[in-house]
């Protein structure tokens, strides 16, 4: 048999084997290499239909409704089902211009001819009623109901936060969300997103290649039912929150009120603010851009948790407590005020009127000299500044200052308490002493706090030695929260007995003539408070320029068994007793009595704005600060 004949015999067999092997190669490429463990969602033959549960309602601490949902109606279009129609009549009915109508229709066609697109988003209820019955005339168009947030208040925008469509990053991060779904973006909506949203249900539908439904996939074996969003109760007092926002009219700053015994946030106000309804519905994105781009008033900047400033005089109470705990003073220790005090040869001023001060009058009259002396005594107890600083730091930080509080407000700042390292960096290792850092005695120096930290600090004083981490969530579906972080007290390093004289001093701020808030007394309520006046500077054309002082006030009431601790901080409000003091006392009265007796005082706060003050540094003209007249 010749070789060529042999070759002919095996030719066909070889071809069969080669074909078989190349098929197997191709199939292993397709089915093993290219095959990805793609989920059923990515299968074009399976359509997932989601059943969205209603987002949970939000109630205030007294069970008053704050946030609910409202229906919204979108006009949808399926382009290939659109029949010839009377365009003019239809656009009149929709209330849009012809140009926009045609543009939207073109956009919808471009997206898909057989899938629905939004034609006109979020009709008003009135338009919806008008359109509903006539819709049948227009084939290819229909109305789809959606659920939007509804706010039963004009206040609390910064606390509630807002919801908006998930972005690409979130889509890649969290497989729960699908394109076009909504997600809490800030505030409570963000922090408690998973409670509020519930869990969407899903139905899988088997489709054919024309995208028509032909029945449930696997007879619904993989389908799930929606899980309702949870109703939550928050710690806010609706009345107090609304009242506080009214008082903030035309003012910038923050107010935080806490119930000392529980750490519950009663109100959390940032001024200027905005109506939460602005960030719902058709104009959400337009409004948000406008608010966000207001770089001067910054309404979206929550000052109650983000604004860091020197605390000013309220910080003196902490220094008093540290000094008592360290046994460097007793309540009776007296320090001479020479209408000021000396740092080396330099004299620094004091407004208390001078005299031989003890602890209680030192606090009541906010004597700078007394606290400078006290601060020095703390330092003199220890052989080195480093040791003294460590001790001081430990005490101050035990009040929740200088670090994140760990509250359930999703935004915030840590504030700052200086340490030995801070000064080693500023002055050099061991090249500083108490004189260098004496400003901390009166809350000016390197100490920075946020209003919520200030309120928490006041709550710790009100509780005589402990605080509970401030929080906003009170109950879920009527069940009280059990998170130990928001239940267990956190003790300061100051023993209980040292608080009494300090509290007495703070009470005298109101009750004794010469106290810095004597004129702000509320009849029938014992209040303990402390004013603060914070110097501040800005740069205008590169030149450092002092502006009108920030007005700060902390208070709690009643003195025995306190119900509310509050911190108020008003930008450029001048001395503490002025704006901040007024607002604090009104808030306390409102919360405890439920009504205001001092209506003239209330009227002044509701009407007075600081717009003129805020315009000063921007005017480009010379201006005077800390004007006596207001």
């Amino acid at each position, binding site marked *: 048999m010749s070789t060529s004949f042999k070759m002919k015999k095996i030719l066909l067999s070889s071809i069969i084997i080669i074909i078989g092997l190349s098929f197997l190669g191709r199939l292993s490429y397709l089915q093993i290499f290219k095959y990805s463990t793609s989920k059923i969602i990515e299968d074009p033959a399976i359509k997932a239909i989601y059943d969205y549960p209603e987002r949970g309602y939000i109630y205030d601490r007294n069970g008053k409704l704050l946030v609910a949902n409202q229906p919204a109606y979108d006009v949808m279009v399926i382009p290939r089902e659109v029949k010839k129609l009377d365009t003019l009549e239809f656009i009149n009915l929709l209330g849009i211009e012809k140009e926009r109508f045609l543009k939207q229709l073109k956009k919808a066609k471009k997206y898909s001819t057989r899938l629905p697109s939004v034609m006109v988003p979020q009709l008003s209820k009135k338009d919806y009623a008008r359109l509903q019955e006539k819709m049948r005339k227009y084939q290819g168009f229909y109305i789809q109901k959606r659920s939007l947030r509804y706010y039963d208040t004009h206040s609390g925008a910064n606390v509630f936060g807002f919801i908006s469509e998930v972005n690409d990053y979130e889509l890649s991060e969290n497989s729960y969300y699908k394109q076009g779904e909504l997600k809490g973006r800030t505030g409570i909506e963000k922090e408690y997103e998973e409670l509020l949203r519930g869990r969407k249900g899903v139905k899988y539908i088997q489709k*054919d290649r024309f995208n028509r439904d032909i029945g449930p996939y696997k007879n619904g074996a993989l389908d799930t039912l929606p899980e309702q969003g949870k109703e939550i109760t928050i710690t806010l007092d609706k009345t107090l929150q609304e009242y506080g926002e009214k008082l903030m009219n035309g003012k910038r700053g923050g107010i935080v009120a806490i119930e000392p015994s529980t750490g519950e946030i009663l109100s959390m106000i940032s001024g200027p603010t905005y109506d939460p309804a602005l960030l719902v519905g058709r104009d959400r994105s337009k409004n948000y851009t406008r608010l966000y781009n207001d770089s001067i008033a910054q309404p979206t900047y929550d000052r109650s948790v983000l604004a860091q400033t020197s605390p000013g005089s309220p910080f003196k109470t902490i220094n008093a407590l540290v000094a008592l705990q360290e046994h460097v003073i007793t309540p009776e220790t007296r320090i001479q005020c020479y209408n000021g005090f000396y740092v080396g040869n330099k004299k620094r001023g004091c407004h208390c009127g001078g005299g031989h001060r003890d602890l209680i009058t030192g606090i009541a009259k906010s004597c700078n000299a007394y606290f400078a002396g006290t601060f020095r005594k703390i330092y003199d107890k220890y052989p080195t500044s480093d040791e003294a600083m460590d001790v001081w730091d430990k005490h101050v930080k035990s009040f929740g200052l200088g670090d994140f509080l760990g509250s359930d407000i999703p935004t915030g700042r840590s504030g700052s308490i200086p340490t030995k390292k801070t000064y080693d960096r500023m002055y050099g290792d061991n090249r500083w002493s108490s004189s260098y850092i004496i400003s901390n005695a009166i809350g000016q120096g390197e100490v920075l706090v946020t209003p919520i930290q200030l309120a928490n600090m006041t709550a710790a004083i009100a509780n005589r030695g402990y605080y509970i981490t401030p929080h906003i969530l009170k109950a879920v579906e009527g069940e009280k929260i059990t998170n130990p972080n928001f239940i267990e007290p956190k003790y300061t390093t100051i023993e209980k007995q040292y608080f009494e004289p300090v509290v007495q001093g703070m009470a005298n701020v109101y009750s004794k003539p010469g106290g810095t808030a004597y004129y702000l007394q509320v009849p029938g309520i014992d209040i303990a408070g402390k004013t603060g006046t914070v110097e501040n500077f800005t740069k205008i054309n590169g030149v450092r320029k002092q502006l009108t002082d920030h007005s700060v006030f902390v208070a709690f009431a009643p003195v025995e068994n306190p119900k509310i601790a509050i911190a108020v901080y008003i930008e450029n409000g001048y001395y503490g007793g002025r704006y901040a003091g007024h607002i604090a006392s009104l808030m306390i009265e409102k919360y405890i009595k439920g009504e205001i007796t001092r209506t003239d005082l209330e009227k002044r706060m509701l009407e007075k704005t600081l717009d003129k003050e805020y315009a000063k540094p921007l005017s480009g003209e010379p201006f005077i600060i800390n004007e006596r007249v207001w």
Partner: protein
Amino acid sequence: MSVFGKSILKRLDWLSILIFIMLVTIGWVNIYSSTYSGAEESGFNFSSIYGKQLLFIGVNFVLIIIILGLESNFFERFSSVIYVISLALLLGLFVFGKTIAGATSWYNLGFFNLQPSELAKVATALALAKYLTDIQTDVKRKKHQFYGFLILLIPAILVIPQPDPGSALVFFSLVFVLFREGIPVFYLGIGLFTILIFICTLMFGTIWITIVLGILISLFFLLKKKSFKIPVIPISIALVVTILFSLSVNFVFENVFEQRHRDRFSLWLSLEKDPKKLEVIRKTIGYNTYQSEKTIESGGFFGKGFLEGTRTKGDFVPEQHTDYIFTTVGEEWGFIGTTTVIILFSILLLRLVYLAERQKNAFNRMYGYGVVSILLVHYFINIGMVIGLLPTIGIPLPFFSYGGSGLLGFTALLFIFIKMDSNRLKEGF
């Protein structure tokens, strides 16, 4: 009844029969899955596609018994008659044909649509074997080679206008028989070389072909043994002819081909480099291939399970129960299923080659080769198209695809040969 005695059952090639039964069974299971439309009917429905196919399978077994019961030289004796009848039936289509899906390939018999090209495949294989074994035929003579070629050319030409280019290719595949019986393999080489140049021209252009051929010839000159005499003139002529052919390819492609043909080629060879245009081609002319590839891919290694193929249920692949039945195997049975089918086909074809080679009777051997060629071309083109290796050519997968004529045709083709094989010892002369 002597032919149905124990002896014939012993002499049948049971391996081929076993594989045949397995393929038919697997095929029917997949037809059932791809046409089963949920729970709307209880029990079995003979008017449904899977029900009809089951009837055809039943008829098939009657056909098998008839074939095995016939005189063993019946087909050799009557091959010319069968061939002429089938040609007449093909011609008759021009007058009485029924058009289904754009192709006039059927006779409407009321209860059954007969596709004569399936019968013609058997008839042509028989006729070719008969002619080549005729005492007066000399395969070495060019004239007789041409006559042999004519036997398969006539039915091929008759089916092209239907249009049924797939079947035409099947008739041409019978040239394997001619090669086996003596026509020089050189012809096959030229044929393959022509196809290669055609494809390479479309993909790379004439200039590259010239450069590569130039390099190859130079290497040949450099590496040759010194004693070897170079056939300068034939090589030069071949080179020039090749380049001229390559130049004409572009002309033919642009001016003779229709757009749909061009699209099929540009899809297959990825000629279109603009991703946007490629996407359009994939979604239009390439829709079938795109869907069938994706469907097979989605099955993965283990498949989605019987009746669980989502794309099959969604009817994403057109013609799934006929030409694209292999996609159901791919989706529901995965790589395991597809591999099983490929291996079964390969074993069957190799077994048939072996059976053909052991025939003492030349007619039987040539017919055997015809059977292998026809089955191989169907299997190669069908699965190659479905898995995206070959351009789209409509042709059924033997024993698998839905269709009575096809199933009966392939069964007759196979069992006529198995009958011949069972008689090989008796007829040895």
